[in-house]
């Protein structure tokens, strides 16, 4: 898709273009530009240029759009050096994230889950969102950490982002109400370069980690997070990292088939229960 190249050319010449792709699935059409141009120009031209562009890309399923209009392809950006991938959630200051992205000298891929467009933005008030205490990192692309016990007790950390956050928060509520298991949740916004300080802080308190993403399992963000956390905090972990993601397949259009492919509240609950050595 030439528009990625057009945006790159504009950015090379001092503009700060925002390229909006109607469906993030179409990012596949721009991958030559992303891999061989946008992400490379600055370093291969020996820092003589910058490419400060933003690509807004709606991702995600649960609207019945079918296999080519429902994917969460941000994981394909994970292995590309010199770019930034930011995902907003309904609890982030989305306007601040987008402003930071536009002001960033790096190319920023701004991932918006489609379900966000129809949901209210729930920001922390007095350090809480609903019943949960929330801490927000001071980075331009903040991480939010949630706790049901004001950070005094936690059985596991669930790290997630974007459209998976409400599902994970529902799972956390169910774990409290049905099983009296208390978890912390970290909602990242900066996915690439991966910044896991908030995750490591939480894992130091909880001793266990579940990753939850809407993209397919294999080669997902969860795999990279698991690798990094076991490397940095092996002695903190009392159980293997659990990964929750979509099954490795297409996302069908029909709702029951779609639901069967995607990560669910029950899946997150089961993963935490597995760490606890318990069955639901």
């Amino acid at each position, binding site marked *: *898709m*030439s*528009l*990625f*190249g*057009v*945006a*790159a*050319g*504009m*950015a*090379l*010449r*001092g*503009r700060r*273009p925002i390229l909006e792709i109607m469906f993030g699935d179409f990012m596949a059409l721009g991958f*030559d*530009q992303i891999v*061989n*141009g946008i992400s*490379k*120009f600055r*370093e*291969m*031209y*020996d820092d*003589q*240029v910058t490419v400060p562009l933003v690509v807004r890309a709606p991702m995600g399923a649960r609207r019945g759009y079918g296999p080519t209009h429902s994917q969460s392809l941000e994981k394909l950006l994970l292995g590309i050096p010199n770019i930034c991938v930011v995902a907003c959630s309904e609890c982030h200051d989305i306007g601040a994230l987008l402003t930071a992205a536009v002001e960033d000298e790096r190319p920023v891929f701004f991932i918006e889950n489609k379900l966000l467009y129809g949901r209210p933005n729930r920001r922390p008030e007095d350090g809480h969102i609903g019943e949960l205490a929330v801490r927000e990192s001071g980075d331009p692309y903040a991480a939010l950490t949630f706790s049901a016990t004001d950070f005094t007790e936690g059985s596991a950390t669930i790290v997630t982002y974007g459209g998976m956050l409400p599902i994970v928060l529902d799972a956390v509520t169910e774990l409290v109400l049905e099983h009296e298991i208390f978890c912390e949740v970290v909602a990242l916004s900066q996915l690439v370069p991966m910044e896991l300080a908030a995750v490591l802080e939480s894992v130091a308190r909880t001793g266990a980690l579940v990753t939850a993403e809407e993209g397919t399992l294999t080669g997902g963000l969860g795999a990279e997070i698991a690798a990094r956390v076991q490397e940095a905090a092996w002695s903190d972990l009392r159980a293997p990292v659990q990964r929750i993601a979509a099954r490795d397949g297409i996302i069908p259009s029909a709702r029951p088939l779609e639901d069967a492919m995607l990560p669910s509240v029950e899946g997150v609950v089961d993963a935490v229960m597995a760490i606890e050595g318990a069955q639901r």
Partner: protein
Amino acid sequence: MTAPSTFYERMFFIRRFEETLLDLFSLGKLVGTTHTYIGQEANAVGVIDHLAPDVDTIFSNHRCHGHYLAFTDDAFGLLCEVMGKAPGVCGGKGGSQHLCKGNFYSNGVLGSIVPVATGIALAEKQKRTGAVSTVFLGDGTLGEGVTYESLNIASLWQLPVLFVVENNHYAQSTPAELELAGSIAARGAAFGIGTDELDTTDVELIHDAAGHAVRRIRETGSPFFLVSDEDRAAIEARCEARLAETVEAADAAPAATAEAA
């Protein structure tokens, strides 16, 4: 008007520069690969003479040395770059195909550069700099779909892009008749873009045609599609034939002997 002697000097320098690169390559002093521009020098010199390096921009391709030298005259920076030396124009990070200096850029993926040059033209138009964004394509580039998306956008948005198609009749090693259907010039015309087609390596004819194209872009802000038929194969074949004849004749000539001397 630039003097013919100046054109000749520029073309001759590019030719000798690249012949020197080939020699250095044989000696193992170059890293990676090098795509030479031998036989196409008139094109770079004739077109780029109309561009102002401090205002206009060029996006070139993998075969970029001639364009780079004609635009920047930075032979040392280029040679160091392809030799992997620290003073290289990109510190040795880019190598032969990935150059950047001032308003000159090149990249090694065919087709990829065309939308980027189109975006550069859009930025310059918005900034009202009057810059012309020139992009050098080859016949092989015409097999890449983004080329046509870019022609569409440049025409639709009336962007100051000079598309120069250097038809050297080969996409790497594939002859044009196996990779290219239809007319090249008609591709530009199909998008409503002013088009001109040359079949020459005469630098003065190329210079005249490019002058018309660049003037038209500057006056109207519209893109232009200039096709130059380089016939690299014919030039190389003529050179090869002459060299082969020479080698054959020399081989058949009597050996020098002490008696003859």
